[in-house]
C-alpha cells in the first residue's frame, strides 16, 4: 500500500492501482475536510442559515 512495503514494485500495475486508490481516498478525504471546515466557518459566522433541501 505504501512504497516502503517490500511488496511494492515501481511498475505500471502498481501506479495505476494504487494511484486509483489514493485518488479515491484523496477525494473522499479532501471532500470531507472541505465540508467540515466550511461548516465550522459557517457556524462561526453564525446564523442558522435557511437552506432548503
Amino acid at each position, binding site marked *: 500500500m505504501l512504497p516502503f512495503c517490500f511488496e511494492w514494485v515501481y511498475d505500471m*500495475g502498481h501506479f495505476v492501482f*494504487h494511484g486509483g486508490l489514493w485518488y479515491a481516498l484523496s477525494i*473522499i478525504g479532501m*471532500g470531507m475536510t472541505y465540508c467540515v471546515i466550511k461548516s*465550522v466557518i459557517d*457556524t462561526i459566522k453564525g446564523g*442558522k*442559515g435557511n*437552506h432548503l*433541501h
Partner: protein
Amino acid sequence: MDSALIPEGVKRCSLWKFLLALSITSGVLLWGVIAMLLCWIKGLNQTNMNDYYGFALWIWADLAVIALGGGAFFSGLLKYIIGKDELKNLINYAVLIGFICYSSALLILAIDVGQPMRSWFIFWHANIHSMLTEVAFCLSCYFAVLTIEYIPLILENRQINKVPFFHHLAHNMHGVMAIFAATGAFLSFFHQGSLGGVAGVLFGRPFAFRDHILIWPYTFFLFTWSAAAFGPCFTLFITWMTEKITRKKLVKDKPILLLAKISGWMIVTYMVVKSIDTWYWATHTAPSLGFNWEFFFKNNPLYGKTMLFSEIILGGWIPGLLLIFRPTRENSVTRTTAFFLGMAGVCINRWVMVLQTMAVPVMSFDSWAMYIPSWQEVATTILPVAYGVILVMISYRYLPIFPQEKELNPIEGSAGSVDKQVGQTPAGDDSPLQPAQI
C-alpha cells in the same frame, strides 16, 4: 414520547409498537451476534465450510447484498451524473439500502476471514493482481462514500439539525454530494466488476473462468452490469415492502416507474450480453478446457439445467421484459413480481458463480462436492438482514427518508403541532423542544 425526534409533518406508529417490533428484530439480531461471536472465538470450524468449500454461503451473501445494494450507486449515478433529478425522491432510500448492504458485506467478510485481526494486510501487503484486493479497496472506499451520503440524512433529523454545525455540515455535504456520488459510482463500477472478476479469473476452475478483455474477465463487466440492473429492483422492492408495511404511499409513481423502466432496459441489455457470454462459454471456453458444458449440470443433486433456466430465463429475461413493457411495468403486481424475479435471478447468479464453482469437480477423478451451511452460517447471514431491518426502522421513523411522504400523506388539521401529528399520549407533551435524550 419520542415525537420530538420524528420528522415534521409525518405520522409514525406508537413508540410501544415500534419498540415491540424493534425487540423482535433485535432477538434475531442477537441470535446472529451469538453465532458471529462463536465464529470469532471458536474459529471457522463452527461452519460447514471445508477445504472444497473455502467460499460458501457467506461469500454468496456478500456478493448478493453487494449486487442488490448496487441500486445505491446506480441511482446515484443516474441522479447526480446523468441528471435524472426525479430520482431524488428515491435516492435517500437507495443510499440507506446501499449503506446497509455494504456494511453487512463488510461485517460478513470480517466473520468470514480466518484471521480478522490481520484483515488489514489486504491493504498493507496488497497484491494488485488479485481481484480481491481490488474488491477490498473499492468496497471500503465506496462504503466510506455511502457513509458520507448517509450522514447528511442523519444530520437532518429534527433535533440534530438544530445544532448549527450539523446543520451546516449537512448542507455543505449536500453541496458536494455530486463529487462523492461520482467517486462512488467509479469505485462501485470497479468493485462490482472485481467481484465478478473473483470468479472469472479462476483459470483452474473452468466453470467460472471466462476470457478476458484487457485484464478483466467477462464476468467483471457482467457483474457490474447486473448490479446496476438488479440493484434498483431491490431498492424498488424494498420501497414497495416499506409501503406495504407502513400502509402508506411513500414515493410517487413517477420516480418508481422511471427507475423501473431504466432497470428493465438494463436487465434486458444485460441478459443479451449474459446470454451471449453463456453461449460462448458453453461452446468455446469450456470445451477448450476439456469440458462439455452439460457436464457442469449433471450428476449432482442440486445444480441441474433448471438452475441455468432459473437464472437466465426466470430471473433474467422475464423480469426484464416485464419492466420494459409499459402495461406490465405500470401494473403494480407484474412490476413487483418482476422486481422479485430479478432479485432472485441475480442471487442465483451469484450463488452459482461462487458455490457451483466450488462444487464442480475439476480433476477427472474428483467428485461433486455438496455443502449444507451450519446454523452458525445461516444465523450470521440473517444477522445483516435483521440489522438492516432495524436500521430501516430507525431511519424511517426519525429521518426524512422519503421527501414525498408529507405530500402524499397529509395529516389532517394543521401541521404545526407535533402532538397532534403524532397523537401521542400526554407524556409526549412535556416539552417537544427539549434536547433529545440521546
